[in-house]
């Protein structure tokens, strides 16, 4: 229950807050809780444990440090510049929190532990991707989605730790490595790192 409340709070910060640093902290909280459950399922499988270690290192250390570095060097990147005002974001968070409580009623999903929390994490990741305009927030949104998928995997198929952790590791590697590399390349063209500047390709 404590973990679920923590995730509820962290998810709210991800959607509501405008500070890159605080959102990164909220992201780390989500990853740490997911890591807590994932670690338990990998203890008896050395290969899975190795993948989990790499995955956790990438998600909880490399990615936050990378994002913090960008935010520290570029003042414009310290604000996530949400596309909608706070009241609307608050309504979104409430809708996600209440909506996710209905997911256990979807046929076939009820037996999966913490399925409402899993849904809440994934819905929050989509909300971050849609609402926050800063490119760094998009990287965070993808990483939160990856954390949600990892938790879903750990809870629904704990007998497949190798496959789950291999997937989680590679997902984190792709998002962290490519995302931060592209953000770095973007700085020369769009110093604000604003998603609104990526509108030249349309139609």
């Amino acid at each position, binding site marked *: 229950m404590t973990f679920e409340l923590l995730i509820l709070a962290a998810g709210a910060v991800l959607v509501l807050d405008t500070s890159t640093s605080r959102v990164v902290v909220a992201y780390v909280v989500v990853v740490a809780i997911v890591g807590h459950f994932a670690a338990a399922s990998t203890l008896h499988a050395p290969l899975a444990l190795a993948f989990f270690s790499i995955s956790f290192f990438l998600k909880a250390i490399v990615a936050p440090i990378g994002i913090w570095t960008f935010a520290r060097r570029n003042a414009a990147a310290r604000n996530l510049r949400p596309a909608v005002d706070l009241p609307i974001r608050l309504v979104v968070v409430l809708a996600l929190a209440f909506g996710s409580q209905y997911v256990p009623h979807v046929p076939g999903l009820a037996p999966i532990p913490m399925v409402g929390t899993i849904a809440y994490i*994934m819905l929050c990741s989509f909300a971050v991707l849609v609402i926050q305009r800063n490119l760094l927030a998009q990287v965070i949104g993808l990483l939160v989605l*990856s954390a949600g998928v990892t938790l879903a995997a750990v809870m629904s198929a704990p007998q497949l730790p190798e496959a789950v952790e291999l997937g989680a590791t590679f997902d984190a590697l792709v998002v962290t490595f490519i995302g931060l590399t592209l953000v770095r*390349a973007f700085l020369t063209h769009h110093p604000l790192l604003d998603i609104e500047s990526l509108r030249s390709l349309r139609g």
Partner: protein
Amino acid sequence: MTWLVVISPLLAALITMLFRPLDVRRTARVVFSSAAAAMPLTLIGKVDWLSLLFAGIVSSISLLATIFSTGMYSVDWGRGQALWTRKSIYFVLLAIFWSAMLLVVLATNFGLLWFGIAATTLATAFLVGFSGEAAALEAAWKYLVLCSVGIGLALLGIVLLGRVSLEEGLDPAQALAWGAITQHHVSSAVPLASLATAIMLIGFGTKAGLVPMHAWLPDAHSKAPAPISGLLSGVLVSCSLYAIMRTATVASALGAGDSFRQLLLGFGVASIIVAGALMLVQRDLKRLLAYSTVEHAGIVALALGFGGPLGQFAALFHVVAHAFAKSAAFFTAGLVQSASGTTTLSELKGLWNGGLPGRFLLGALAALGGMPPFALFVSELLLVAAGIAAHQWIALGLGAFGIVLGFAALTRATIAIESGHAPAEPPLAQRFSPPLSRLSIGAAAAALTCAVAFAVVPWTSLGATFAAIARGIGKMP
């Protein structure tokens, strides 16, 4: 042995880098890549025919893209400053892309297949943004974000599928293997199986460019270098459709086949109509071709949705025919772009009189429009027959309407760019420095030849082989 086949393109690229003189390196690249492309032949009898067929498509078109790149980029090269915009890195990324796609089609379970699909993102995001220009980076970013969401959802679907397998008593080592799942005939967890396969379809469908998950595709395919566009449209989309075919097999085995086919019909019809309509308003040749890819992915989804032996045959045949036609179209578009400096349709005139690339482009556009004697004409006829056999009149009618829109868009563009007089400049073919330009033109010609040659397949002994492979899609063995 399978692993050796998968990594052979990467090994070929790394060995090629050891050669210092540029001429020797180019020759070595063609030789070693050809050897890597022949490697799937060593798997005859060791993997199933569907995997082998797709491995053949991946290797042959990747080889053509490598040859095309070797010829084309010996003259002009990217001017970006980032490490990943360098020429040597380009060929390594291309080889990683090739290897990842081989992994997708040679995997025997959804875990490895997903890993291959995710690995393609690693290489292609940089290849899409290879020029380092703002628009290319924008396309790469959209590609990364949307495809990461897609592969994330695909992973979610796969773990839910794993849960279904485990609940039915499958060994954890076999829980994600489609061979084991289909033989086990599990059916007591239909709701979860339906949900899992639907999420997998959305995930893989994102990578295949099915509407409404297609938003990244026109940007990425139009902004990538021409040979990469050819690979993205011709092969990566085919690999994603291959993943959907494997998912369809499992969905049928788990009792979720009907709902899966309904979803395929919906995605297929939406893709064909939306892409066909948007093709009519395109002003850029490569973007027009990219939307054509969305349309053709929709045609394959529609054929799979029709189901039955005819629908499955049409889907499989269309994937192969489209792979060669679309890569030929992007290769020739690249030649045209290199010669004229633009892909804007209103600025391209008299290409027919401009030399071989313009004439090849005419052929490629005719192929994509589904005109005889190209293989896509045959596969679209098969699609109509499959729709009639399945009594899916509404889906067939809507699909046919979308195909007509796409045909009209391609015909209008073809007439506009091929007719008239070319600007008073030398013919296109003369602008490339021989002999390397011949490599690029040869690669485009080879792809186009395959797009014609496959038209006769249904009437040869290979047609029976195709039919046998197709029967394995969407139903239990």
